[in-house]
């Protein structure tokens, strides 16, 4: 499993980012630009895993960066990486749950097909349907459990997960076990007759 370098910046650089240029509440333009460019693709990939739609993923990723920019830095303890991934994944999960309530997953299958159809249309249909099922199962998990699973599947280490989700590093393994069990349970509840997990 590839482990991402979350920040793309070393600690000294992060320190500079955390040192606002006015009233402890804003970024320098250059620091934010670098941070944005270095994290955008990875963050939007995390968001896409949850919402399954490129346009929506871009919209939510944009929103997360916008909120980060407007977020007071809060001194040296503020961790912009953790904040960003936590906020973006939560936005995405809230969106996913709202979509689930509105029953729009079926529409997504169609749009996913249009966006990423491969050489074999049948495979593409089956894959899109499978992804829809997985997202439906994720939508009924507790948000923190869904965040944990998605970020881990995106390659986050225990330490990075702990930083991103504001949990103790020593509790990550146990949380993962519980989250996966909850996911298997919700998946089986939804698709137990059709799928083996």
């Amino acid at each position: 499993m590839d482990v991402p370098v979350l920040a793309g910046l070393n600690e000294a650089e992060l320190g500079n980012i955390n040192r606002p240029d006015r009233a402890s509440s804003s970024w320098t333009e250059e620091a934010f630009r670098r941070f944005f460019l270095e994290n955008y693709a990875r963050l939007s990939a995390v968001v896409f895993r949850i919402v399954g739609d490129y346009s929506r993923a871009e919209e939510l990723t944009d929103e997360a960066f916008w909120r980060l920019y407007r977020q007071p830095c809060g001194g040296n303890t503020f961790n912009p990486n953790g904040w960003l991934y936590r906020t973006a994944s939560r936005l995405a999960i809230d969106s996913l749950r709202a979509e689930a309530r509105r029953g729009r997953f079926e529409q997504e299958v169609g749009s996913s097909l249009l966006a990423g159809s491969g050489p074999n249309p049948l495979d593409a249909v089956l894959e899109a349907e499978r992804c829809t099922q997985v997202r439906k199962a994720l939508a009924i998990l507790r948000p923190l459990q869904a965040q944990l699973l998605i970020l881990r599947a995106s390659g986050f280490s225990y330490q990075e997960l702990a930083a991103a989700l504001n949990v103790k590093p020593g509790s990550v393994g146990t949380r993962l076990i519980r989250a996966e069990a909850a996911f298997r349970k919700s998946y089986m509840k939804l698709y137990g007759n059709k799928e083996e997990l």
Partner: protein
Amino acid sequence: MKCLTDQTLRALIDQESPNLEREDANRHLAQCADCRSRLQRMSRETVQTGDILASLAPRKLTEPAPAFDRFQARLASEGNAPARPRFLRGFFSVHPLPAWGALATTALIVVLVMFAPARSWTQHVLAMLRVEKVTVVPLDLKFDKNSDTQELVRKVISDEVTVTLSAGKPQFVGDASQATQMAGFPVRTFTDVKESPKIGVVGEQSYVMKLDQSRLQAIVDSIGKTDLQVPESINGQMIAVHIPKSVFLRYGNCPEKHTGSKAGSEDQKKPSDSSGCVMFAEVPSPVVSVPHELNVPQLFQIALQAGGMSPEEARTFASKLDWKSTLVVPIPRRASSYSEEQVDGVTGKLITGRQSRGQPPEYTLIWVKKGIIYSIHGSGGPEQARALAKTLS
């Protein structure tokens, strides 16, 4: 050596064990068939789940440069105007009347606040609502104990309320000047109190609620008011609430989770020694918006009747109310009383709970000044609230 914990096995599978722990674990695994079997089972499940979740990965990565252009364009258009959630922009541009705030707020009371356990009503109100003036409506809230109603309300909140901007955990700061800087308005303190308060700044929060006639009707029915008819015209109407940053100051011996705890949670059920605790809340007015076609006064009359008022009482109360600017605070009729108080140069409301089991009554003194709702909440009698209010910075 004792058998390995699930956490240790999981860390082995994920290659997250410290070297020393991994060596110890491997030695144990070499001797323990049970642990080997558990490791195999966990490993199989982890791989299966991982494979399924891996199928969600995007086929392409998004280019960051165009996204940064969008960000800069947004910065140029919105600049340093007060932050407003993107999801709500359309909503507010269509319905820019802040006066609707009180109306929407009132509708939210109907569903979110009025049915909460009496013990937590002040926290809910303070967390949700801020307007220009305050009025109090005593209601018969005996249906708080009706678990069917609570469950219906819980489901409505869970299914129909979308948090578009979460406040997150409060950030605690060292003094009022830091709180002022973070919150964006002048934070006040009690000048005559020697001890330093614990000051928490709660982040912005936004909610969107979709109204569902059948669910609201089910709530009303569960209270036994089957004669009340929730209009079908509310179906699908959206109410949006945006609450700016707010500040809570704790003086004295306060329970840790005084703010933000959920209605009916274990924290609230446990008796706690909060004598001497005074909570001072400073909360700017929210921006709330509802569709013009939503008849909130009608909804509120229904809610008042559901709360035990006769149709005539509800009509009279509603006709006297300035819907556009008044925060309506429902209080349990049998457990509380209230009076008007001159405080901080304006007229506020002093709500006092009944004394029970030898405990001093709880009080809440609440008023609105210059767009900020202030509330002093504690136990020990209303004199304390009056005295504290006179010492505000």
